[in-house]
């Protein structure tokens, strides 16, 4: 009789599985068609902490090289020299090789102003490797110098606010809330 019991068990368990599958005809689909049929851009739905392609706000970059030192794969190259006359740091070069970057986020953690930060942009495909090298400094710029009090320049204040909000999301060492 084992033969018929085998058949019966097989048919019964397959129908049990199939009933689960059929019940999914009645359920709402979980998937969306990317990229054409999404109601809003995927980039806008991503969480605040999402680590996408790196971006630098040069307006608030202090040229401290903390990010360059923190990067484990040296994909950030910064050239900052001190101007002998004005005693200010001048950024000659700020390159990030997006092709090398592994999006670990170690660079944005030590940044004092939140200048270097991850965006929610993730579509970085391109036709050539050279264009993956993001050059942020077009012409030499004077590095940002943090002020004692709150930032007064109306052009820079919102950028700094964004930067500090980004930084505040990181856990602070030993700090008690």
């Amino acid at each position, binding site marked *: 009789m084992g033969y018929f019991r085998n058949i019966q068990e097989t048919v019964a368990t397959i129908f049990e599985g199939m009933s689960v599958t059929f019940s999914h005809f009645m359920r709402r689909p979980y998937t969306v068609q990317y990229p054409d049929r999404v109601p809003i851009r995927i980039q806008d739905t991503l969480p605040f902490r999402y680590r996408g392609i790196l971006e630098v706000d040069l307006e608030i970059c202090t040229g401290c090289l903390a990010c360059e030192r923190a990067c484990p794969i040296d994909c950030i190259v910064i050239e900052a020299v001190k101007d002998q006359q004005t005693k200010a740091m001048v950024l000659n070069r700020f390159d990030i090789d997006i092709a090398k970057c592994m999006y*670990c986020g170690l660079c944005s953690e030590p940044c004092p102003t939140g200048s270097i930060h991850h965006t929610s942009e993730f579509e970085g495909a391109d036709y050539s490797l050279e264009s993956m090298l993001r050059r942020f400094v077009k012409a030499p710029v004077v590095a940002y110098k943090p002020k004692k009090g709150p930032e007064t320049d109306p052009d820079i204040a919102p950028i700094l606010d964004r930067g500090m909000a980004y930084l505040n999301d990181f856990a602070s060492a030993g700090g008690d809330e």
Partner: protein
Amino acid sequence: MSLGGYDVEVQRPGGLATEEMTLNMGPQHPSTHGVLRFIVKADGEVMREAIPDVGYLHRSIEKIAEKVGYHGFMPYTDRVDYVAAMPCNQGWAMVSEKLAGIEVPRRAEYCRVIACELNRIASHLLSVGSMGMDIGAYTPFTHALREREYINDLLEDLCGARLTFNYMRIGGVAWDLPPEWVPKAVAFLDRFEPLIDEYNALISYNKIYVERLANVAVITAEEAIDYNLVGPNLRGSGVKFDVRKDLPYSVYPEFEFDVPIGSGEVGTVGDCFDRYMVRINEMKESCRILRQALAGVPEGSVLAKVPRKFKPPAGDAYVRVESARGDMGWYCVSDGSEYPHRVKIRTGSFTATSIIDKVSRGLMLADLIAVVASFDLVAPEIDR
């Protein structure tokens, strides 16, 4: 051992010439879960031996540690086992903390446990899903991956990445739990737990599925210990050993959970089905741990004060964490400088590879897929 130089045995039953065939399975094979190659000596459909040939995914991660320093190595630990990266993060953080004698805040330990257990569920889902797919049932895979996607979303909220988390830091974690995250995680558990039973109805007790897995590649408890199997593979053979329970670390002693072991419910203890079922049951246990952890997250800071130039005193340390693939050992020798002198990672997949040759003898060729899937091998973890 020369891998290509097998003697060809010629047998002539009834004057008909037959010979054993040496086949390559992999390195590029959809069911080997990465780049893993087997040299199979087959007599018709029956395997005489199947020798795993590892090393295709070697990235010298241990050597990289000597180059990038303690803080910089954390993202690399994600790549040791990309399916369950959180326990690897934790292993590296713990071994560095042990070297330097750093106390981790309690809230950080809770964050770590929550992240690790979510990641364990995700890893086991991928394992049981691809197990179905490997032996020919495609639907369970989509079901498992659907749930895994929700975990990925949760972890993405938590640490900004879906696979290579880089969530933990030496002395704690990089980000606190986001606001409104705990209720979201509890809502996920509420939805997920009944789905395990649905999953069982869908495939686990399907007759064809059971026939493919029950009594295949039976590993006795002694063999499992002899061959150094760890994690669900060891527990599938009926050995009740879990690092979280027997050598407790972090805050695991505070939680109540069971260690599921193989019971041989449809075949023999230690067969492929038992290893599969241990993973299903472990997901339930992980849900239990998560519920307790999410309900009791203490207040406080999540990161201890650790200098950016991290220089642990000279010495060595070894820690064991229970990764999704079992007991994962992290050994680090420090010479007092900014860079580790030597790092060694002991992974469960590597030892599981060594027993494949033994259990595959005499099995059908198609069963090798079931065996490999039941061990839940992750190729990057074998080679590092």
